[in-house]
């Protein structure tokens, strides 16, 4: 969580300094949810399809920081080679699919990866997971995907990070049910609810959902209540979020809550956390510095073909 926050605030300043082209999308305020999921999954076995606010989940799942900085800074050595950017990165062969922008579409992709594992006889103990926002629940793709997951009874966890807004659109223009959790039953999947600002609660509830899926209890849906503590992207100041919301429980900074929980619970001392901060800041600096000195893609070296089987003219 802390690492992701530090990484992201660096990305934000790089963006503001004009060093990153395109968009920068942060998970500020959503780290507890995302990291709880990433940490519950096992890299090399499980599948995790992150969305735009999942830096913390990626970090916890074990994505290298260089993958992030290289992709944001357009290094040709990154996993996307400069062909795609920012949060659209992934390593699909390592269980980390690379999202397209169209919301809701990761659900069926993860379903397919799980179906493949089943057909290959490699399903035992595997979990697939993805995160979506409140807005993404309005997509047909989300619906078709989740329904398919339920029919196939796949070991999948779908996290809905309900951060009260989709870009500027408040939830009352996005859905009319009382709670998105009410949808779980309609798909025939188990539903869980959690306060997304509370790290211990997230870790418990999401951890349990992952365990349930792993143990064969079928698809799990977790709805987390929280607030985005940044703009939609770093180009947006989020001024449409009312102050009352910011001031309330949803507006708590999950990182501060987590820090308090860690110190109070005796999981870590204040100085230990300070030490982490220094350590992670150095790590971030190093990853940024390295990506910055790496070459950009060169159009003359670029292989301009989109199909593997034909390198010629189509």
């Amino acid at each position, binding site marked *: 969580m802390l690492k992701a926050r530090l990484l992201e605030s660096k990305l934000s300043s790089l963006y503001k300094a004009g060093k990153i082209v395109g968009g920068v999308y942060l998970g500020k305020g959503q780290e507890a949810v995302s990291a709880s999921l990433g940490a519950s999954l096992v890299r090399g076995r499980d599948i995790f399809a992150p969305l735009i606010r999942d830096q913390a989940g990626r970090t916890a799942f074990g994505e290298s920081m260089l993958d992030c900085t290289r992709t944001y800074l357009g290094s040709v050595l990154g996993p996307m080679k400069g062909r795609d950017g920012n949060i659209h990165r992934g390593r699909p*062969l390592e269980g980390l699919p*690379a999202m397209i922008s*169209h919301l809701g579409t990761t659900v069926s992709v993860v379903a*397919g990866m799980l179906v*493949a*594992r089943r*057909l290959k006889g490699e399903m035992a103990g595997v979990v697939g997971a993805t995160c979506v926002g409140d807005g993404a629940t309005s997509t047909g793709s989300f619906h078709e995907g989740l329904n398919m997951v339920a029919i196939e009874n796949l070991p999948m966890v779908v996290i809905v990070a309900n951060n009260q807004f989709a870009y500027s659109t408040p939830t009352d223009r996005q859905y009319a049910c009382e709670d998105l959790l009410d949808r779980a039953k309609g798909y025939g999947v188990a539903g869980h609810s959690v306060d997304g600002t509370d790290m211990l609660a997230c870790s418990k509830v999401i951890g349990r959902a992952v365990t349930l899926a792993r143990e064969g209890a079928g698809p799990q849906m977790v709805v987390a209540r929280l607030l985005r503590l940044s703009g939609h992207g770093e180009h947006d100041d989020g001024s449409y979020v009312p102050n009352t919301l910011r001031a309330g429980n949803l507006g708590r900074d999950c990182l501060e809550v987590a820090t308090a929980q860690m110190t109070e619970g005796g999981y870590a001392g204040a100085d230990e956390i300070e030490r982490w901060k220094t350590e992670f800041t150095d790590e971030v600096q190093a990853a940024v510095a390295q990506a910055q000195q790496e070459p950009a893609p060169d159009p003359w070296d670029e292989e301009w073909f989109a199909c*593997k*089987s034909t390198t010629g003219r189509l």
Partner: protein
Amino acid sequence: MSVTYVDAIRDAQEKLLRDDPRVFLYGQDISQFGGAFKATKGLAEAFPGRVLDSPISEDAMIGMAVGAAIEGLRPIVEMQFADFSSIAFNQIVNQAATHFYRTGVPVPLTVRLPSGGTPGSGPFHSQSMEALYAHYPGLIVVTPATVSDAYHMLLDAVALDDPVIYCEHKFLYRWLKAPRINGDGLPIGKARITRPGKHATVVAYSAMVHEAVRAADRLKEEGGWEIEVVDLRSVKPLDMDTVLASVARTGRLLALGEAFPWGGVTAEVVSRVCVEGFHLLDAPPLRLNSRDTPVPYHPKLWAAHRPTPETICIELRKLLTF
């Protein structure tokens, strides 16, 4: 005993399931029921667990196939009708087609599109969508016109590491028969001279190849004209070598297709020939497509909406007498 076009598709899938454990089939009503056109008849029984009925969720069907392909499998998705792939359009052109370029990881999936018009099928069960998919980078688009091609090109499609849009023509399903399937060894990306000639070239694909041959037969009888018919076989890649060589022989080109007239395969063929082989042309090239309306329901309207031997002959006569 003879083999129909749809038998060939079924048999190819049977062979694929038998020979390649990575292959599985996914689509609406394809398991016990054997598919709306019986293209998967008996396969669910023969290959338990590998022929799966999907919900009516074309978007998720392709999303799931992409996921399975990432994991190394070779899914074949049957759309019940090509027209319903409009629902899967996003997953096809944005998820499947971009994946290799973006990540370096190929997604070897095959989408079977029962395409083209038949009498009485109307606006939503008759479409030819090859041009849409060919426009987007990252897809291979094939359009078999013969029983043997239907068989071999499906095997080849599944063998390719890229997403392949396999357009099978519904009109040919039972109407087109061959004594047996024979392999002529043409790979995807190679066109075929279906009927050699010297006075004009018709470039066609899918069901229109047969209409072109009919028209050519008539003109042969009528005036001894020798019309060469080129079957593109795949519309992406387009085999310009074969097309240009034919135009070099005949000096005259008619591009023929069953799709809507704005854009599409005929525009691509004519414009490539003009750009790359302008000097080969002894007369202005011509195009013939269906009309610029939805495909009409009534058989009388339908027959006037698409190219027929009559209208092909009209165009060819213009070309020959230029």
